[in-house]
């Protein structure tokens, strides 16, 4: 493997981290879904690149899943849902964006600090990919924690899952990657259908998870 191969792999992984930060400060749902589509698109590119440099044709399947399912179908489905629920203009109340961004930066620093020394003996392409993948995973978690809206939580989960896919494809020769990405796609499909069901039942006026808590009423 040559220098340029690494550089492109790292550039794509770095792009993913950057897009994760973009998600953190999107308070409107539609732009957030656009960023999600871009996130999945970059992941597809990155996986395809790994397939090329590792000479592992099965990874192209994972790339194709990322492209078709995560970059096109899911964002479109979520977008339609947002329109049907009429929450496209809503601005989410998140606590201070500045603080969230700072926390995101701290998480990236943490994952670099933790992973780089650990993987010092591994090949450089694996080393930095894993560190960047962990950053994406942690920012995804941060997003899920700071958002109240179910759609943005799903977006957070999907970006987290993209980070895991990045790590799995970066770990050279890892078996079952395709199977695992299929399993994850099933999971995401279920989540999306789940949100859809909430709406179909029309038992909640909003998909704000806070409102779900109230639905329980005086049970406890």
């Amino acid at each position, binding site marked *: 493997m040559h220098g340029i191969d690494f550089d492109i792999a790292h550039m794509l992984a770095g792009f993913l981290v950057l897009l994760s930060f973009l998600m953190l400060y999107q308070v409107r749902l539609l732009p957030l879904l656009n960023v999600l589509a871009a996130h999945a698109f970059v992941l597809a590119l990155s996986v395809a690149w790994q397939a090329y440099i590792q000479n592992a044709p099965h990874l192209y399947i994972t790339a194709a899943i990322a492209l078709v399912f995560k970059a096109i179908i899911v964002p479109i489905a979520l977008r339609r849902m947002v329109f049907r629920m009429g929450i496209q203009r809503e601005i989410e109340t998140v606590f201070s964006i500045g603080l969230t961004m700072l926390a995101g930066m701290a998480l990236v620093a943490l994952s670099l600090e933790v992973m780089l020394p650990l993987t010092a003996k591994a090949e450089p392409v694996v080393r930095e990919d*894993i560190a960047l993948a962990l950053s994406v995973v942690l920012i995804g978690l941060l997003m899920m924690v700071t958002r109240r809206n179910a759609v943005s939580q799903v977006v957070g989960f999907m970006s987290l899952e993209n980070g895991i896919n990045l790590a799995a494809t970066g770990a050279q020769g890892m078996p079952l990657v395709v199977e695992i990405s299929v399993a994850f796609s*099933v999971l995401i499909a279920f989540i999306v259908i789940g949100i859809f069901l909430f709406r179909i039942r029309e038992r909640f006026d909003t998909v704000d998870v806070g409102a779900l808590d109230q639905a329980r009423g005086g049970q406890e």
Partner: protein
Amino acid sequence: MNAVIVTLPSWFDPVLGILLIPLVAAAILAALPGYRVSAGLNVVASALSLGCAVTLLFERPPPHSYLMVDDFNIVFILLNTFIGFTTSAFSASYIAHELEIGRLTPWHLRFYHAMFQLMLFGMNLALVANNIGLMWVAVELATLTTVLMVGIYRTPEALEAAWKYFILGSVGIALALFGTILVYLAARPVIGEGMDAMVWTNLVDHARGFDPSLLNIAFIFLLLGYGTKVGLAPLHAWLPDAHAEGPTPISAVLSGLLLNVALYALLRFKILIAANASAIAPGPLLIGLGLLSLIFAGFMLYRRRDIKRMFAYSSIEHMGIIVFAFGMGGPLGDLAGLLQMTMHSLTKSAIFFTVGHISQVKGTQRMAAMGGLTTSHPLLGWLLVAGVVAIAGLPPFGVFTSEFLVVTTTFAREPVLAVVFIFGLLLAFGALLLRLADVAFGEVKGPIGPVHASYLPVIAHLSLVLVAGIWLPPPLVAWFQHVAAMLG
């Protein structure tokens, strides 16, 4: 490097049996319209799986790169198929009533039965998997099927519980996958690329050569990931809702089986970490989380109004005890952990069986609306009393034996921890007996209609627990000790 042993399955392979029977049954049940036939078939399929699991005691196939059976997981497989079988028997009488009162439609039941078998398939696959990737996929499958069943009543509460379970469970298994990838990364330089580096038997053979720092960070992710599914505090938030809002047979298998499957995955990785001398000792982490869960759940038990929710918190408490015992480790600690796990599964599912019938009679799960059960429904009431006495850790039941073992081994090694541990036990003990007094004795409250209960599963479970409390057969003890030695 020892090569992966591949065996051709002959036409009768019990391991394939415990996987294929539930899978085929799920497909048939999805197509069968009549609920009576389905409930019957559900019982038959579960019984056949149990039969296959029992033959594993006498003869077991050698491990290959996907599946294996060893002394450790056979305990879990037997427990899993046994409780799967008794729960299917309980479920048959339970759902008939749900259909009568119109909480479920025949279509729902078709779905429910198919999912029940699919869940058993997922759990059995997770237990026999010799591949950490396959194990992960199986745990995910089992989670998904239970999510669908928790939400089956379609009430806002049930949907909320399912959603919460789903999101938290997904984050948990995502973190577990990250940990799994890190284990592969640690193994790759030693074992080489490809499938071999995910085969558990290979991993354990070569664990001493792995990079310890990678293993450490992997274990943290696995602990958080699978720990969420075990229901350890502070990752437990999904557990009480999922237990309270789903159908009771599902509460029974969630507590009795699914938590064990997640725990099994965690213990497999604990063995792996323990095999590498320079990696962190997993003990203190497990002890910390275990004690936290025990004490937290102990306090939470006092505030519960819903009977299923209360026993869900009791499951968190017991998972805390079990994880604490495995964290203490040593021959006695591991033995106590295994015993406690077995006893908890049997007792807790028996309790959920009785609670299911009780809440059907009373038409509610609120404890304030039920009372004097031993007067109005003597058999049901006394079975509940026996179950709660057992789960609270009183002699002569088996839970007492295992908790006593945990306390003695802890006292011998870390007296301070033992004091904290006993405080947690007493806390939970007090809460359970306080509630039991209201529900089982005193004046009769709520409807006193007749109950169409299946007592056999409850009695079977509780008598096993009772026998284990009085006399443990020496071969069983020897076996548990052997497994405890494996756990290191």
